[in-house]
């Protein structure tokens, strides 16, 4: 295809991505180094006869509005926002390092800082949910594959539901059941033998709840991909393994899993990216007291009456850097594939 033809074919989609993905990234980066203007103060001296003169400092509304309109971006502050308490908190981390005797104490202090707390949950969620959902998805795929063919279709239908359903809605549905008055919640209360038992009460339980949701939501994806992979499993290799006396477990370990390995990599990479953006469950489970994620911090800064664009932008840039680090193995792999062609 000629360059010219390619250009016209690609123009609409390229323009859409340039205007609404590439430019916003630039805009986010710029906003993250600007802070909102501070209010302009003016000092007025009021002199009344007999009483004397008092000076009073007030906000000059007109001047403040003028400067805000003249420079809507705000004032340039460099990397200050990145380093403040809400983000990388360099000073606070330094103090915590100096003040705490042990590593545990340091980590405790670190988790009082919003960004590190969110980062801890986001990374824990990502790196626990992803392997769990792969193992669980593989187990479902192996089990469903051995079923009668009519049942297979039915199982695939119901298995797709947790994945297809809107994440916020899915987490709400589970949240209402896990609520201490819901059906699973009251069962847990009965099991724990403690009438005040609640999954929302402690950080650990909240994290477990969110991780269970994460596996429930994403395991169907792994299942569907692995199930499709199992359909292309070469039967002669299985038969050869059987003739060699391999047990069922050995067949899975040495024939099935290696056959599915490229798919495992694929699922792992996709799910790492998707779990890193965990956000809706935190809202749905109303869990922000115990678990916040990077995306949730951005959302929280942007919402409400005061839209803290600069703070949200700085967190966005840090999140994008995190995604880039996670994505680097994929990029390297794609590059190798491309070179190999």
């Amino acid at each position, binding site marked *: *295809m000629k360059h010219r*033809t*390619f250009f016209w*074919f690609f123009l*609409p*989609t390229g323009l*859409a991505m340039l205007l*609404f*993905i590439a430019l*916003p*990234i630039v805009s986010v980066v710029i*906003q993250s180094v600007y802070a909102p203007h501070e209010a302009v103060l003016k000092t007025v001296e009021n002199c009344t006869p007999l009483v004397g003169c008092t000076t009073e400092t007030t906000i000059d509304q007109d001047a403040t509005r003028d400067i805000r309109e003249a420079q*809507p971006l705000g004032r340039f502050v460099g990397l200050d926002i990145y380093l403040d308490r809400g983000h990388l908190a360099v000073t606070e981390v330094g103090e915590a390092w100096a003040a705490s005797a042990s590593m545990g104490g340091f980590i405790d202090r670190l988790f009082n800082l919003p960004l590190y707390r969110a980062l801890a949950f986001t990374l824990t969620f990502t790196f626990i949910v992803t392997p769990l959902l792969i193992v669980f998805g593989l187990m479902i795929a192996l*089990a469903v594959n*051995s079923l009668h063919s009519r*049942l297979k279709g039915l*199982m695939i*239908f*119901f298995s*797709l*539901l947790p994945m*297809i*359903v*809107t994440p*916020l*809605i899915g987490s*709400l*549905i589970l949240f*209402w059941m896990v*609520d201490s*008055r*819901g*059906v699973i919640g*009251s*069962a847990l209360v009965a099991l724990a033998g403690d009438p005040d038992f609640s999954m929302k009460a402690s950080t650990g339980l909240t994290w477990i709840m969110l991780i269970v949701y994460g596996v*429930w939501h994403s395991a*169907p*994806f792994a299942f*569907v*991909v692995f199930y*499709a992979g199992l359909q292309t499993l070469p039967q002669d290799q299985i*038969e050869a393994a*059987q003739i060699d006396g391999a047990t069922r477990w050995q067949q899975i370990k040495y024939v099935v899993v290696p056959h599915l390995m*490229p798919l495992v990599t694929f699922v792992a990479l*996709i799910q790492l*990216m998707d779990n890193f953006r965990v*956000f809706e469950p935190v809202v749905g489970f109303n869990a922000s007291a115990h678990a916040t994620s990077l*995306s949730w911090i*951005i*959302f929280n800064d942007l919402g409400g009456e005061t839209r803290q*664009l600069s703070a*949200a932008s700085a967190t*966005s840039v840090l*999140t*994008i850097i995190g995604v880039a680090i996670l*994505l680097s193995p*994929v*990029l390297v792999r*794609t590059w190798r594939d*491309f070179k190999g062609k």
Partner: protein
Amino acid sequence: MASKAQRMPLGLRILTYGFVFVWFILAAFPFFWTFWGSFKVELDFFSIADWTNALTGERTKAAYDSAFTGAAYHGAWVQEEFWRNVINTFIVCFFVVCTSLTIGTLGGYALSRSSFRYTFWLLITALIFRAMPPITLVAGYLLPFFEWNVWGILPTTIIVLVAINQPFTLWMLHSFFQNIPKELDESAKVDGCTQFQAFRHVIVPVMWPGVITTGLFSFLLAYNDFAVTAMLLSESNRTMVPAIAAFLGTTYTEGNVMFAVAAVVSATAPLFILVMFFQRQIVSGLTAGAVKG
């Protein structure tokens, strides 16, 4: 047909069936439970006294003389005007799917037919864009949208969702078009067609399976989005998902939670129907990316 050597021993078979059954309950039960409970009053749905109330509907009987009531649906759809959000959602989804398929098809076709190096870099850029959480872009939209006075309306959100959709659409359609033999449109070009005519008359008639699959995923992305729609739509233009989140924001007074439950069930129903009719396309779409790597 499974050979005798492959037939499972009884214990393993029971274990397998047990596991499948447990997964079936895990996957399906929450939906049935919430659907069943949406026809009850809140005191039954969150059974404080006895969990069997949720099944029998004791309090619902006391309040409405019947074990089932549509009060929650009436409250959500009529009192809270959820139908407006439903209409908004379908407007957004319709235009997002149409627009992103139109421009995505052209782009994906071009990427699959050009052998220059820049197609690789464009695909890599799209992959990076696909990996970024959409919420990270929202901070970049707000200031310009406020300045131009286009914040809060549906068209802005539609365009943004189309753009966010493009990377995925391009990858999917690119790999799909690569499976359509190049000889088809090349022979059309030999016969004197321009590239666009070749696309229009030769490729378009055979591309529908891939386009429908991609369209399903575009629809799901637009339908399921919360971060972008919650941030970019004003209160009167909300789609379903941010509206449900707003139901929760209002105090948990009696009845209000049931409005949210009814709204959740209403929003799940179209997805249920979608999976029922397009199960095969969804499965093939999920695996297409995997097989292609």
